[in-house]
Structures are given as structure tokens and as C-alpha cells.
């Protein structure tokens, strides 16, 4: 008997995709707990247990600063993102938290260009119940993609 409803986890996942793909980054931050952290890390570093991440937001403040950066300070080519996330596999759970994983693919479309596979990897999530809703206590995006096509601006 599972303690967490997999539908509820999927609902959190789909909200996550929706917020990022529609560039509603304030709502994206709300999907995380106040003590959350968010990382985008190459598989190479993850497997070698090297601590460097491509994007390493170890506090909610840093997540908010990143959003400000995305909107105001980092000059970049405009692009659309489209996320596709697999169903989660639950690794471990108790009354209040669940560790789960899912595959993801992010497609990028630049103006006047065909859509391309931008970043592919696996989410490693720690999800908790907070005020009746599920939130990410941590999300680590471990990407297989060996070469970042120039830059990653938006969250993955």
C-alpha cells in the first residue's frame, strides 16, 4: 500500500512543466518548500560524485535571484521550452516524504528555427506534503546530454 498517491505526484510534475514552459517562473518557485534546493548537473559530475552543478540553487532566495536573472540580467536569444516527463518511479517513502525519479526531455524552439532536443535526463526528487499540497524539497536534474547547445537560461 503506497503512502503517496502517484496521481498527486504526477499532478505536481505537470504543474512544474506548465509553469516552466509557460514561463510563469514565480509559480515555479511556489512548487518548492522554503528550504528547497534545485540543481541542474551533468551526469558526468553526478556519477563521479563531483559537486559542481551547472546551475546550483541551494536556497529559495537563489531561485528567486535566478528568475530575476532570467528576466532582467542574462542577455539571451529568445526561445520556447517544451517539457515531457515520464511517470515517476518511487524509490522510498514514509508518512511525510517521498523520493522518486522520472525521465525528462526538454525541446527547444528558437525563432525561425526547427525544434531540437535541448536537454535529456532524469529528475531525482524529494517531495514532501506541506499544507495539504505536495512540494519539492529538492529537485536534481541530472542530464545525459553531453554538450549543452550553447547556454541553459531557463530552469530545466
Amino acid at each position, binding site marked *: 500500500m503506497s503512502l503517496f498517491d502517484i496521481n498527486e505526484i504526477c499532478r505536481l510534475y505537470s504543474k512544474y512543466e506548465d509553469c516552466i514552459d509557460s514561463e510563469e517562473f514565480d509559480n515555479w518557485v511556489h512548487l518548492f518548500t522554503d528550504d528547497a534546493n534545485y540543481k*541542474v*548537473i*551533468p551526469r*558526468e*559530475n553526478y556519477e*563521479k560524485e*563531483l*559537486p*559542481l*552543478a*551547472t*546551475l*546550483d*540553487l*541551494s*536556497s*529559495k*532566495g*537563489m531561485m*528567486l*535571484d535566478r528568475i*530575476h*536573472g532570467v528576466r*532582467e*540580467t*542574462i*542577455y*539571451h*536569444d529568445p526561445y520556447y521550452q517544451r517539457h515531457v516527463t515520464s511517470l515517476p518511479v518511487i524509490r522510498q517513502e514514509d508518512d511525510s516524504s517521498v523520493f522518486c525519479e522520472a525521465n525528462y526531455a526538454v525541446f527547444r524552439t528558437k525563432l525561425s528555427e526547427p525544434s531540437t532536443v535541448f536537454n535529456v535526463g532524469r529528475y531525482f526528487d524529494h517531495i514532501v506534503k506541506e499544507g495539504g499540497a505536495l512540494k519539492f524539497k529538492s529537485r536534481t536534474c541530472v542530464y545525459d546530454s*553531453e*554538450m*549543452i*547547445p*550553447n*547556454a*541553459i*537560461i531557463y530552469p530545466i
Partner: protein
Amino acid sequence: MNLKNSDISSIIDWKPDEMGRIPLSAYVDEDIYKLELERIFYKKHWGYLGLDAEIPNVGDFKRTVIGERSVIVVRNKEGGVSAFENLCAHRRVQFCRERDGNRQEFVCPYHQWMYDLEGNLRGLPYRRGLRVDGELRGGMPADFNMSENGLTKLKVESRNGVIFGSFDHDIESFEDYLGEMMLGYFDRIFNGRKLTILGYNRQRIPGNWKLMMENIKDPYHAGLLHTWFVTFGLWRADSPMSLKMDPYKRHAVMAGTRSTANVEASLVSGVQSFKEDMVLKDPSQIDIVPEDWWNGPTATMMTLFPALIIQQQVNSLSTRHIQPRGPNSFDFVWTHFGFEDDDKEMTARRLKQANLFGPSGYVSADDGEVLEFSQMGFHTNPSSTSMAKMGGNDTQDGDCIATETLIRGMYKYWREVMEV
């Protein structure tokens, strides 16, 4: 490749005294690029191979490139470093497919030719032929010399934990190559302390490889494009600045000191990236702690021609390796590191400040973006020129951000090597 000087002149029309304009064919032309590989990447220049800390034990190896050639760097049986081309002597197979690992020998999968950790050929199946019905059939010719058929070896020099290699065995020493001034800045970071590898970032930038060198020889953009640099005083018009080159002007260092006082309004008036009211929600990202070894500058950005950048920006340290892939693209490999005696807090600080750099970094993501836009602009106007006139037409050392002297210096040298 047999491109003659007269042929180069037909591709590049560059007047001898015109230093402040760069013909765009230098960035897009295939023949020029091939000549660059020959004359710059495979001859007379040292290329970055890696850090000692990446291959500490006998048999540890990593795969990297010089120019477009795949190279294996390995800790040999004597504890030194060997490097050879990843190209079997037999059928020229790029036999090593792993990124790194540990091996006591290298075996090509195609016909099992075996090489030792120095790249010498140690064995090959049926060398003396097959005994069939009591007689030897086939096999290599009797005069086949194993010692003459090893892998293509590189000349290797390490300095204080950083490994360089060259296909050119007649090359000058690494110390002479860098020159006294550059060596001073090099040794300031790499003074023999053991390094700790923090991790890698890899990005592919659709631009000519030289654009990345130019970017790190260009103090002018850094105080304009990068909000974080300007707003937090890490690199802006009022930062004390020293721009120096080696005697050949192929290498350079930009040494800057962070401005902590309020900036004089006139220096940032009209600078769109200066956001006076910007306050970080998490100020720990710029929790900068001066380190004893800095001895002055808070940032030193070194460009070691042709393809290595060594970054110290406050507490964040990295090597950035440019790996060209034709004239229009290069891979950019970042190795972030710290020192063995860093405490936990310093390691955490280096990692946090790494958010400024790399393919997502606050001050590096947009560098990659503008380089891509540059290459786009070059393609549609190959007979045009780009301009680098800020600070004059000469190649003297500089002392402020409003100069492009280091870019002109690099092209002065490039033209000598390329005979343009």
C-alpha cells in the same frame, strides 16, 4: 595542406598597418581554419591536456583533444605523464572510447594491437604469421619494427599540476612559451599546491574558436554586458585594471580589482546593465573572502594561446578549454577546481560562485549567446571586417576597460604565424 601565401592573400585582404579591423574570412573560411590547425594547433604551440589531479594513479587516463585530434593523457609507470594520439598505428582507429578510466595497457578493439602506457606498441596478434600444416603463413613482414610503430607521442610538460602537450617535439620549453610575465600570473594560481577537481561543464558554442579568446581579451564588454559584474563591482569602469601581454602578444592577462565603493555616476550613466537598486535575495552568492595568495587583484583572466583560459574571478577558479570543430563551432570544456587545503566553507563558496560561470552562468551564458550572434553576422558578410579600435590602433599593454588592445595583440601574432 598546401595553401600557399598567395592563396591566403586571396582569401584575406588585410593591410599590414590595419590592426583595428579583422577580416571576417578569418572566422568563416574553411581553408584558413585548416591552416590554423596545421600552424597553430599542431605546431609550435603548447596545448592544454589537463590537471595532475585528474590522473593521480599509475594507469589513470583521460581523453581530450588538441585542435581536432583526439589525445590520451595517462599517468605512466614512472609516475610521469605520457600523452599520445588516440589513433591506432595499424588502421588508424580511434580506439579509446572512454572519457577516462584506469588501464595498464591500451588495446585497439579492431585487431587487438596492444600499446603500453607510454604509447609503445607491445604486441599484435599473428605478427609472425599462422602455423598451418607445419609452415608459417602470413604475418607481418620480417623487417616490421615494433618500436617504429607505436602511437604518435606528444611532447609533454607539466608545471605545478597543469599538463600541456604538443605534437611538435622541437617546441620551446613551456616556460619560454609563456614568458616571464605570464608565468608569474600562472604560478600565482598554480604554485604547487595540490588541486581538487570540483567538476566539469561542457557546452558547444556555434562560433569560431578565436571569438572565445577575444571575449577573454575584451575588458570592454565585461563592464557592459554583464549586470552582475557591473552592479556588484566585480568588473566595471572604476575597477583598477591591468592588461598585459607576453612579448609575442599571443597570451594575455586581464587583472582587475573589485570596486567596493559606490560607483561614480558618470562612469555608469547610460550603462543599461547597471542596476543600482538590485539586491540579491540570497547575498551568500557574492560572499567573497579574499585569499592570501591573491596579492592584489581579485580577478585574473588569462588567455594562453591558442586554446586555454585560466579563470580566477574572486573565489571561483576554472580552466576553460577551447576545442575547435571546424571554423564555425567549438566545444568549451570547463574544469572547476579548488585547493586541497580549502575548508568546507571555501569549497561551498567556490561552488556557489560557480553560478556566475559556465553554460548557465550569470556572466558567462550571455557570452556564449553573443558569440553565436557574432558568427551569424560574419556568415552573411564574409568579405566585411569587424572592428577592434577601442583604445587605438596599436598593441600596447592597457590599464582601463575601454580598450581592445589585447585583441589587436593576438591578431598581430596570428598574422605572423599565418603569414597574412
